[in-house]
């Protein structure tokens, strides 16, 4: 009533309504995830980096940025949405998690890589809530609670560590879980950039097993991609595979981890193919792994022992697969016996190698 009578106020109401239209809704715009690589490449073309991100760390850098963009697009309404995680542990395993738990899982296991670099494992311990990296008061108070809750070091076993991390952080708002994870990813990329070659002699301790540092770092990129696509699938969102030059590093990682995984399964009595003991460095039998599509290539997988020389001459079997199918197999999303693969040669060897690939999904 007042507005209809009072010209001054009606005028102001009109101006204020117009002002609403000026509010910039930056968060509503979906950024093309591939733009990041193009922009950074353009920048580095204009001025080369003096402290570059190592080639083997760039898949992790890119995958973390893609997952972060997905989480930003999803907003805060999805933290408790169910996500089905699958892996292969002798048989397919499938468990239900929430988006928040998946992020906690990534944070906890990424923390093992940080731990080997000497970074504090407490995630938020050295977080400065007054710093500009913390977006708002809610997140800051969550971080303080996190700091109060995290006393002792977490377990090293990836799943024990995940549950310990989750137990300590389950009350944090999703936005805080996201910034804890994201801050750690940035810190890891920054630290390995400074460490450069210095990190190559390190091992990352995953409790029951250890991986050389670069393999571990690439493995974290692989996990980040796989779990991001798990989240995307759960909320019916499109999610592309990594850029081909990153995918090729991830495929190469899985191919290089095969001989050891095969040897472990052989020791555990889980293989059926005939085995021969061959001294490290001597030629032995091999399986030719031919990966097609983006990121593909050819690998000769040594069958007799991880240290044996694998060559074309010793080839007893040949498997051809698409790169994404191979990654799905290594992620435990496809059963070894159902993987779409062209197979020629020793059936038992092929079966053992495909099962070894699926067993890589233990992380």
């Amino acid at each position, binding site marked *: 009533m007042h507005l209809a009578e009072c010209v001054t106020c009606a005028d*102001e109401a009109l*101006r*204020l309504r*117009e*002002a*609403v239209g*000026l*509010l*910039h*809704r*930056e*968060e509503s*715009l979906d*950024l*093309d995830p591939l*733009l*990041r690589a*193009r*922009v*950074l490449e*353009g*920048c*580095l073309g*204009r*001025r*080369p*980096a*003096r*402290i*570059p*991100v190592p080639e083997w760390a760039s898949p992790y*850098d890119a995958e973390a*940025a893609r997952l*972060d963009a997905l989480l*930003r697009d999803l907003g805060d309404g999805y933290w408790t949405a169910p996500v089905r995680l699958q892996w292969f542990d002798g048989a397919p395993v499938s468990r239900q998690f929430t988006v928040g738990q998946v992020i906690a899982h990534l944070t906890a296991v990424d923390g093992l890589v940080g731990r080997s670099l000497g970074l504090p494992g407490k995630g938020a311990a050295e977080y400065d809530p007054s710093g500009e990296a913390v977006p*708002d008061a809610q997140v800051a108070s969550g971080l303080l609670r996190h700091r109060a809750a995290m006393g002792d070091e977490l377990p090293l076993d990836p799943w024990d560590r995940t549950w310990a991390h989750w137990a300590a952080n389950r009350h944090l708002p999703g936005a805080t879980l996201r910034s804890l994870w*994201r801050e750690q990813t*940035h810190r890891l*990329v*920054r630290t390995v*950039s400074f460490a450069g070659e210095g990190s190559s002699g390190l091992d990352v301790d995953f409790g029951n097993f250890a991986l050389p540092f670069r393999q571990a770092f690439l493995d974290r990129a692989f996990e980040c991609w796989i779990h991001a696509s798990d989240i995307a699938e759960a909320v019916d969102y499109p999610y592309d595979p990594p850029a081909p030059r990153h995918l090729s590093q991830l495929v190469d990682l899985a191919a290089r981890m095969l001989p050891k995984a095969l040897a472990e399964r052989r020791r555990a009595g889980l293989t059926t193919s005939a085995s021969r003991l061959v001294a490290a460095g001597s030629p032995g039998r091999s399986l030719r792994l031919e990966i097609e599509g983006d990121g593909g290539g050819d690998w000769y997988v040594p069958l007799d022992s991880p240290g044996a020389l694998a060559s074309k001459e010793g080839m007893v079997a040949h498997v051809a697969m698409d790169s994404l199918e191979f990654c799905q197999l290594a992620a435990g999303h496809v059963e070894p016996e159902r993987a779409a693969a062209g197979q020629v040669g020793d059936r038992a060897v092929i079966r053992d190698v495909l099962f070894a690939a699926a067993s890589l999904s233990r992380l």
Partner: protein
Amino acid sequence: MQQRLARGEEAALGELYDRYASLVHGLAHRVTDDDDAADQVTREVFGYIWENPDAYEPKYGSLRSWIAALTRRQAVHRLRQYEHRGPGGPDEVEARVREANAAARADFIVTSMPAPLRAALELAYRERVDYRRAAADLGVSEDEARRRLRLGLQMLSTAMEPGGRPEPPFEQHDRRGPA
């Protein structure tokens, strides 16, 4: 951040992108209304910052407002280039430029307004909750929530007056910028 960029840390460049890309791209898109042009502006803005890490002077304002102003300048430059090619006449382009300037000023005002006012505006107009819910979320009375919203909108509305709000001060000092 500026020191890290100056040192040539690629990781800092990635973090800069992660923090500001949605601001830059969003603003560029708002000015040019074109995906490819917004991508191009984004490349140019980050390329410029990376190549000239010392161009930003903290005493004249926040990094965010500086980046916003750089983006606006570059996006307007793109828009003017279209004047020669696109179907719209010069008047139409100048109207778009004025609109873009108002949008950029509004963004600058929002990023520099007191946090309580900004929080109220964001709740009311980004999250689209009513003022009762906004009051509850902010932990203030409904009258206080209304007062903050009105003050915030009043500040924002000054962006619409041509020349009503001074440009970010560094513009007078810094003539360097992407071409």
